[in-house]
């Protein structure tokens, strides 16, 4: 999260409580006075690459709850993770409002596919029976007839979320989705006071492109399931999107940075600040897995030996 996009420069402001000079880091919308602790929300003049947020999903998971969730999650990681993980030191905890675009559109798709329709046929065949005589028998076989199908498909697409932050990739955001968008609120600085709020650092056009890609992939998946028949193959689609809307929304995410060994990079665990859903990759220990495999093989061999002796 140490990104300095040029469109949201660092700022010097004067604390409105104690008068001290406070620096607002580049790319952030909030800061806290180091002397008196007053939380500030800073609204920079608008810029075409940095629209004001429209919506906010507010934090409902507080710090203590998030810590509890992380502890439980690490505890449930099973025996094969690296040795230090369960004693890992939390190096940083931040509740961040991550900028993202909420995208929607009307989708129109043309598709064509081969649809497999099954039918059964009775086949006669000759074989030899147990006495060595040649006999004629019948059996039923399932065969597939391939028919081509094409058509059009129209649907509303809504609730597609893509990251607008260079610090948190789209895959990471997807890992902690879904957010309950019924609880969307209009942006107000009230919801940000005392939290870290990042400014959008990816240009709106790039985010929309990302959202379009996600939407197309989603519609292709839908269409796979939409095909009739017993099976289907070679689905071709041509998808167009119109009436697109994209609005900047701030999403609540807890970010935990854990260090489990001096010489290793710290690992990052994310928590959905609304639902408490956890995502993160914990490194596995090759040694532990190898030991377990050896132990299992040893046991199996031992068991076979014992059984062999008794037999």
């Amino acid at each position, binding site marked *: 999260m140490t990104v300095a996009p040029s469109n949201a420069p660092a*700022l010097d*402001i004067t604390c409105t*409580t104690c008068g001290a000079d406070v620096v607002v880091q580049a790319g952030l919308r909030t800061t806290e006075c180091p002397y*008196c*602790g*007053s*939380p*500030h*929300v*800073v*609204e920079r*003049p608008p810029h075409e690459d940095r629209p*004001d947020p*429209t*919506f906010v999903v*507010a*934090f*409902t*998971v*507080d*710090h203590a*709850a998030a810590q509890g969730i992380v502890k439980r999650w690490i505890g449930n990681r099973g025996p094969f993770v690296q040795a230090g993980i369960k004693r890992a030191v939390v190096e940083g905890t931040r*509740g961040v409002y991550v900028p993202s675009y909420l995208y*929607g559109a*009307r989708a129109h798709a043309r598709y064509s596919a081969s*649809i497999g*329709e*099954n*039918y059964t046929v009775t086949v006669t065949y000759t074989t030899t029976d147990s006495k060595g005589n040649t006999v004629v028998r019948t059996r039923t076989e399932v*065969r597939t*007839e391939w*028919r081509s*199908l094409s*058509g*059009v498909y*129209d*649907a*509303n697409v*809504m*609730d597609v979320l893509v990251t607008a932050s260079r610090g948190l990739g789209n895959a990471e955001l997807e890992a902690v989705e879904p957010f309950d968008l*019924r*609880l*969307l*609120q*209009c*942006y*107000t*600085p*009230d919801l940000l*006071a*005392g*939290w870290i709020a990042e400014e959008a650092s990816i240009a709106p056009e790039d985010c929309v492109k990302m959202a379009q890609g996600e939407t197309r992939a989603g519609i292709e998946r839908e269409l796979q399931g*939409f*095909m*009739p*028949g017993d099976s289907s193959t070679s689905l071709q689609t041509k998808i167009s999107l119109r*009436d697109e*809307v994209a*609005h900047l929304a701030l999403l609540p995410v807890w970010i935990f940075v854990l260090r489990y060994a001096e010489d290793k990079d710290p690992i990052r665990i994310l928590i959905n*600040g609304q639902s408490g859903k956890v995502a993160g990759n914990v490194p596995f220990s090759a040694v532990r897995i190898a030991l377990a495999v050896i132990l299992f093989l040893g046991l199996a061999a031992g068991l076979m030996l014992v059984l062999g002796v008794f037999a």
Partner: protein
Amino acid sequence: MTSTNCIRCASPLESGDLRCAVCGDVPEGVHVPPKNERLEKIVLRCDTCGAATRYDARSQGLLCSFCTGLLKSEEVGDPVEQTEAYLPFTVERKEAREALKKWLGRLGFFRPADLISKSRIEDLRPLWWVGWVFDAEALVSWTADSNAGSQRSAWAPHSGQTDLVFDDVLVSASRGLSEKEAYALTPSYNIGGAEPGTGPREDDAVVEAFDVQRSQARTRITRVIHSIAAHRLQQGHIPGSNFRNVHVCALLTGLETRRLAFPAWVMAYRYNDQLFRVVISGQDSAMLKGKAPYSWFRILGVAAGVLLLVLVTVLLGALS
């Protein structure tokens, strides 16, 4: 309640909607805070002690850490709905009792013989249950297998798009009635006869509130539309007479929703020591959904009889 229509899908937007409930479009001017041309630094202060406050996740509002006062707790934008109109009761209490008796008599042979004489009505009370009634137009994209145009297989694939109009479709929002109960009573109501604002007249009437939130209506309504569309498409739109794998996707426009309360009699009767529940429509006493005991004695008797018959036939077959 209705003010403007969604530009994209022409569904009416309601006050407090941040996005269109049907297509997710964001209405113009719903959000935009006034643009500030220069840098703004905002510190939110406690009304009581003047200290700087911060947003508290647990209480979901601004919390002052000095005097621990909660400044304003944001009302999260998912309003709970209000009933717009009530359908009147046309079935009287006495009729409802009679209807139960009649129903118990019609249930057939496998019920206990003394069901009517031994059943005692324990509780009979009027209930207004709530539901959404909607009208909408939809462009329905569909695919299906049918017998039309089939070759070696009995099935051939078809696809198409059909404009369908939905009028007065009732979707239950009730917690008191199960979905099955609500569905069974649905055809009995005269939706056109809803009276705006007329509240309950019966003293002991239970009046349900809409405690399912508006945004949840969308998923339920979509489910109902899809099942109705799949059903209607099989009556003349998809070629053929046998169907399977009917897939539908509806693009809704102009979805208008009304929130109505529907009258019903909820009855509990006791047979031996067991309680059974029956729901009767408040507008047509013949519309009724409920549970009744079975007579295991009779069922087992018939089963034994059938078994005996089969055995005898088999034995006779073996002997001859």
